[in-house]
């Protein structure tokens, strides 16, 4: 479904992603793990076409997307839940969710997905008329995920959904992600620093360090890998 081929990305002269190849098949749950500064966010932003690569190509369902503007990429069915939420903080919870469905006009479908989001995160329903900026960090992360779900995407990309949250809230978010994985017919690409949260539920994962893919494998395999154990699982 998604193919990233030999991607290299710079910020000015600084190299952020170097010769990264990655693919995601329909229905898969794929994780990218790696420490802060590894290039995960840059990789995700390049897939969404917010950043243009210096070289390499990105294909979605066979169509080249790195040359498209971001809104055209979104139109193809890719939703990107950005790192650190990035909500419309001065708008209400409901308005943020409506903006998630910006490209849709199937009223019934939108209403169904709204129900689904409210079932997944009941607190959002309670707070639907509140400004997003007044929510707690965890609630904001729920809203960011809910907003991405409202697009009813084919590929859902979540960039470090647990970053900056308290341990309990991290778990709560990952329970929700597991639920999305089970219940929705959506392909998922997720990045995460906390490998112990994401590897158990990943079909496959990539380990990214200093801009490069260091390793890849099935989630379970990587959990048994000595390097991953020592470096990422603290075992």
């Amino acid at each position: 479904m998604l193919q990233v081929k030999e991607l290299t990305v710079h910020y000015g002269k600084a190299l952020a992603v170097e010769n990264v190849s990655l693919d995601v098949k329909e229905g898969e749950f794929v994780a990218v793990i790696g420490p802060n500064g590894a290039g995960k966010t840059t990789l995700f932003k390049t897939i969404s076409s917010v950043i243009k690569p210096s070289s390499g190509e990105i294909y979605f369902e066979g169509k080249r997307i790195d040359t498209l503007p971001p809104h055209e990429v979104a139109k193809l069915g890719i939703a990107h839940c950005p790192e650190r939420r990035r909500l419309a903080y001065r708008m209400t919870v409901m308005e943020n969710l409506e903006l998630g469905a910006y490209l849709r006009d199937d009223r019934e479908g939108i209403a169904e997905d709204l129900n689904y989001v409210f079932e997944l995160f009941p607190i959002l329903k309670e707070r639907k008329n509140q400004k997003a900026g007044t929510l707690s960090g965890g609630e904001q992360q729920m809203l960011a995920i809910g907003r991405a779900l409202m697009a009813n995407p084919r590929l859902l990309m979540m960039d470090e959904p647990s970053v900056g949250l308290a341990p309990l809230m991290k778990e709560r978010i990952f329970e929700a992600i597991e639920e999305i994985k089970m219940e929705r017919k959506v392909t998922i690409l997720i990045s995460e620093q906390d490998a112990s949260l994401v590897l158990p539920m990943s079909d496959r994962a990539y380990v990214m360090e200093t801009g490069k893919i260091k390793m890849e494998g099935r989630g379970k395999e990587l959990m048994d890998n000595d390097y991953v154990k020592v470096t990422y699982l603290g075992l």
Partner: protein
Amino acid sequence: MIETLLNLIVSGILIGGLYALAALGLTIVLGVMRIINVSHGAFYTLGAYFTFLFSVMLGMNYIAAFLLSVVIVFAVGVIYERALIKPIRKEELNVLILTFAAAFVIEEIVKFTFGPRYRNIPPYLSGTVTFFGGSVDVQRVFSFVIAIAIVTLLILALRFTKVGKAMRMVAEDEEVAGLLGINVERIQMVSFGFGAVLAAAAAALLSPIYLLYPAMGWDPLLKAFAIVIFGGMGSITGTVLTGIIFGVAEVLTGYYISPTWKTVVPFILLILIISVKPTGLFGEEE
């Protein structure tokens, strides 16, 4: 005494509504595009002269002249944005200088086309209404009512329509707006057009009250800047209230102190407020 005061406040509010309208255009462009548009006053000038062209020179009815002017200025704004702003929008200083230069070019075009002398559009409504024992021109009341109607419509559109919500999203986070499927460049182009329209509408509504001349846009531009900063950059409510506060302050100063101080008062108020609250009246602290 008290009647005079109330009467002055009424005239201040009437003129302030039009200041608010003009300043709102600047607020929207600032919010959605993060640029300071020094050409805003030139769009004001164009609005006045197009109304003059259609109503006085071509003898059209005033409402038709107003609507036609507004539509033309919208088109001018959109073309201006595509041709001049879009290629350099990220370079803030260049945008500042370019919009400054373009304002002079537009002024010269107006001077060349209509001549340098003062023009006026005769009031199309006559008579006065009485408020608190004082009288106010029907013309001014009408212009104010239309201005407030436009402001209200705009606020409702921003709140409830899809384009309005997209504009607010772009104002908050351009990059994420793109991720959500919003065509950011198109929203910005349209916002710029609307911004120009608000300046033009204010000018068209003021044209039966004030005189027209090619450099007429600079004064409202400065006033609009002062209003936008006083109200808190990007705050619609702040802009509207400040417009009215400035209108009233001007009229009161003109009457009780001296007409020469009248034009300076908004700027004195501005300096006072930003020394107390640097983000302006309704500005959010970062």
